[in-house]
């Protein structure tokens, strides 16, 4: 066994060589795909050879490498992209040795399924729900440091703090917002659900944000929407490719080093990547240091895909994140005498998935299985106000693991009717042993708090999508859920075993999409979404800073009755997405003061009824001026309004109660990017963005109302393609005017001016 382990690298190389030889009889065709007018490279063009199963996809520089079968009498290469006219290129045997340059013509007004390719706040205008995509270009142009940096670009999401921030969509956060990785649920070990600091965003190809409930397909928790993190496919490029990136940020002296090796042929693809990131404490605009705000991350990922034919693709993804130490900035909770650090924050994720399209082509069968293991050391150090001496330490070790799987089939019954159906299940367990040291009094004790508590979620669903005519389509979905919540091995001394509760719930949706004219859609979605309470809320008491939030075994599931009305489309180079929503939340799980126990403590409870209403408007432009075809402009503006209302018992759904917390006020974001193509495959760009947040005046009692603020960013970049490699150098200045502000609901200021640099080399 040890011999095998020692020789894994050798076996790996041999494996690559063997596979290269098997398919080595073909020849490689290299080329670049560009826009016929702007001459900009086009990413994600699907390229295939007629009569063979050879295919490739162009990368972000428009470059592709395609293996072709030269034994064919006629070599015809198909180029297809959703925004361009299909193009077929006939090649002679001689031509295959040259680098092809293919120009595609835009088909802006002729296609219905539109993906707006503006790199800023990209949107899918033909979807039933409002859907935004944050792509690789956005990540690079922003030189984003963490997941929350990217999410704040999307209307309806906002960033509260650097690095580690609550993720809130349309006023609903944590467990009411589902985070998935390639469609598989991420659970996390925070009481409020999954946080993003363990995600290596530079290993993602894109992030999909679907606004609106998705409980039919995803089950418990998908009430506000779904954020799906999509891995980079190793099949994106053929042959061996290497990537090396290095970044630096002036404010927190963040150093970022990333590298990856990618190899693929027609049937196999492997990607190995690594990342090291380390940042010191950041600085506020006034020059003060945000003490304890440092972080360190190390990531490694290995993914393998097998594509024996066009009908089947199998993926195996492995990710290891070694996080920590990282800290919460001093003062984040309202006192300067508490320092919270996570010396360790590790996650391991593996997933095996497949997509199979049988011969009939009427079915698309997808399966996946995943396993996640997490370990986080959460340490709270309290200091005396009088003399600054260490007073008290509480350290919790979060151990959790979860695994699950799902299977689904997308069955095209006929040209009008498609049926989706599937099953899924997930098993989650967490232990939270806690040590307490009272340095002042010399006490030390250990607590169990929870051991093997958790939930099991199962569900079965079916959706029918009916295209009544060219304009009108409906989707009707229904799902049955059966969940189990277990207290685990730590339980009341009067009990003989841990408690458990079984909860069954039904949810459904009816979506209507109406095509007013080509590329202009009106959508109306009615849905019943739900979230089941977890062990934390039902059985395990939660110890906060100076208070306890008691569990409540009588909790019921909470339900959302969601109305989403959208108008979205594209007119010439302008795209827009106008989404309004009205959520009626029934039996919302919240906390109230626990009057049954001594002290100021809280208890989880179903608060009855609450509503959240609001809307987002996003408009963007992506194109160029005819007189200046080498100049490309991307511009977008979004405007968001949200209001939450807790309704008192007995009052109507539309009455005015107390404002809900975590509801962002009016906010708006503008982005502008201008790119220019220079000779010799060189391009430059300059960009600017501005985020505005109004002061929140409708706040709950004891809420926080920070003054309004606006923060501006400026960026510039240069990229060049050489004979054997390409490189780019990007710079982004966030908070360019060094504006002092406090982000929405944050007790501490945001980061001051930060100059970031990213150098990327690909070969």
């Amino acid at each position, binding site marked *: 066994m040890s011999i095998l382990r020692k020789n894994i690298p050798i076996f790996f190389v041999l494996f690559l060589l063997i596979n290269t030889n098997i398919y080595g009889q073909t020849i490689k065709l290299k080329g670049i795909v560009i826009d016929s007018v702007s001459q900009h490279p086009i990413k994600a063009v699907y390229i295939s050879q007629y009569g063979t199963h050879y295919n490739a996809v162009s990368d972000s520089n428009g470059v592709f490498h395609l293996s072709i079968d030269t034994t064919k009498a006629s070599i015809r290469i198909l180029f297809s992209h959703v925004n361009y006219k299909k193009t077929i290129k006939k090649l002679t045997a001689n031509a295959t040795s040259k680098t092809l340059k293919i120009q595609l013509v835009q088909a802006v007004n002729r296609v219905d399924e539109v993906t707006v390719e503006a790199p800023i706040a990209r949107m899918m205008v033909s979807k039933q729900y409002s859907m935004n995509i944050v792509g690789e270009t956005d990540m690079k142009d922003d030189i984003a440091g963490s997941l929350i940096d990217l999410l704040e670009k999307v209307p309806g999401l906002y960033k509260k703090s650097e690095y580690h921030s609550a993720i809130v969509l349309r006023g609903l956060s944590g467990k009411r917002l589902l985070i998935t990785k390639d469609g598989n649920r991420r659970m996390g070990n925070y009481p409020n659900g999954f946080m993003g600091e363990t995600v290596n965003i530079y290993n993602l190809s894109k992030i999909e944000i679907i606004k609106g409930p998705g409980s039919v397909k995803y089950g418990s928790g998908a009430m506000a929407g779904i954020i799906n993190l999509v891995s980079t496919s190793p099949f994106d490029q053929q042959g061996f490719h290497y990537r090396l990136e290095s970044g630096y940020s002036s404010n927190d002296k963040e150093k970022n080093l990333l590298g990856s090796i990618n190899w693929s042929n027609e049937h196999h693809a492997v990607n190995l990547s690594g990342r090291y990131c380390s940042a010191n404490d950041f600085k506020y605009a006034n020059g003060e240091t945000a003490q304890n705000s440092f972080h360190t991350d190390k990531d490694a990922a290995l993914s393998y895909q097998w594509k024996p034919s066009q009908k089947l693709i199998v993926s195996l993804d492995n990710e290891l994140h070694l996080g920590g130490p990282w800290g919460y900035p001093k003062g984040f909770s309202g006192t300067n005498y508490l320092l919270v650090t996570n010396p360790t924050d590790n996650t391991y994720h593996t997933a095996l998935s497949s997509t199979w399209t049988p011969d009939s082509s009427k079915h698309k069968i997808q399966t996946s299985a995943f396993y996640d293991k997490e370990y986080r050391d959460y340490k709270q150090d309290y200091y*005396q*106000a009088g003399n600054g001496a260490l007073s008290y330490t509480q350290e919790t070790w979060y151990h959790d693991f979860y695994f699950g799987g799902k299977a689904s089939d997308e069955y095209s019954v006929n040209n009008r009717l498609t049926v989706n159906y599937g099953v899924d299940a997930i098993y989650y367990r967490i232990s939270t042993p806690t040590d*307490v040291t009272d340095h002042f009094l*010399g006490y030390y*004790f250990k607590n169990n708090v929870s051991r093997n508590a958790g939930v099991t979620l199962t569900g079965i669903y079916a959706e029918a999508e009916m295209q009544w005519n060219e304009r009108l389509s409906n989707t009707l979905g229904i799902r049955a859920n059966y969940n189990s919540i277990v207290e685990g091995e730590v339980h*009341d*001394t009067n009990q003989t075993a841990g408690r458990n509760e079984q909860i069954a719930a039904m949810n459904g949706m009816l979506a209507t999409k109406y095509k007013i004219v080509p590329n202009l859609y009106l959508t109306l979605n009615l849905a019943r979404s739900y979230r089941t309470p977890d062990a934390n809320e039902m059985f395990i008491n939660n110890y906060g800073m100076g208070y306890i939030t008691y569990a409540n075994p009588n909790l019921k599931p909470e339900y959302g009755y969601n109305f989403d009305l959208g108008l979205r489309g594209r007119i010439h180079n302008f795209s827009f997405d106008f989404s309004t929503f009205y959520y009626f939340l029934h039996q919302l799980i919240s906390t109230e*003061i626990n009057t049954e126990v001594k002290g100021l403590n809280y208890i989880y409870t179903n608060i009855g009824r609450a509503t959240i209403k609001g809307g987002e408007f996003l408009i963007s432009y992506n194109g160029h001026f005819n007189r200046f075809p080498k100049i490309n402009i991307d511009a977008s503006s979004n405007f968001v309004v949200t209001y939450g209302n807790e309704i008192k018992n007995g009052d109507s759904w539309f009455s005015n109660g107390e404002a809900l917390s975590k509801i962002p006020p009016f906010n708006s974001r503008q982005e502008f990017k201008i790119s220019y193509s220079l000779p010799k495959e060189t391009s430059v760009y300059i960009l600017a963005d501005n985020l505005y947040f109004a002061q929140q005046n409708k706040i709950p009692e004891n809420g*926080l109302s920070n003054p309004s603020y606006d923060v501006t960013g400026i960026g510039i970049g240069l990229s060049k393609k050489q004979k054997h490699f390409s490189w780019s150098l990007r710079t982004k200045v966030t908070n360019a005017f060094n504006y002092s502000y406090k982000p929405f609901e944050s007790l501490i200021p945001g980061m001051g001016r930060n100059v970031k640099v990213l150098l990327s080399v690909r070969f």
Partner: protein
Amino acid sequence: MIKKSAISFLLFIFACTACNKQDVTPQIPTGTFDVKNYKAERHPTINRMGFGMDFVHDSLSTDTLYLTTSMYQSSFKWDLLLYNEMSYYQNNVGDWVSVGNPVIFIYTDTINPENSVKAYKVGEGQTFFTQFTSINQNMIDSLKADTWVNLQKARDSKTGYLLRDSILELYNKLIIGNNFRAVSLQERLDAGEKEADIQPVYLVQTRDKYYAKFMVYQYKGNGVDVQKTLIRWQVFDGENIH
């Protein structure tokens, strides 16, 4: 353990520090005294030795202080002390739970009782506090000193932990005690009322025999003050004492 014993022991020896005050002739100052607002860290692991308040201090800029030595050993002489020692209890799953039990002690001198600070609840709420501008003899006659609190009695004999239930029994006998805690006030709130509308307002006779009105404005502050207790007082002008 040494610190623990020291705290308990020093509770008995405070009297000497006050002896030199017993011959001071009571004076009623005249003039305008500002309403003073303070914020004090509430958490028991942070506010470890207590937050002292001296209503008429020699140097007005230091009329409050987080004590760094045990309460009666401190060189800072206080009239009121916001104190919050960690206490413990075992919960129903067998884990030890530590909780704070905030209390306001008024200065008590068991050897020379006439040197003790005295207090009396005269009303409730921020409006009453503002309108409470003069005091009369009846109010002065109602002033009382606190009963002596021996925290040692509240400790578990085996572990040495300060026990939550025992300490609450002791605090219930005090004049201000823990009556400002939001949880006990929450149930009394009427529609539209805030905590500051029903917080008790006290008349306090200081160590120096001055008179002041005092209230906890908000047990748990808002926003950036969420971890702090907000306190308000004003010393009376002697001309308003009848």
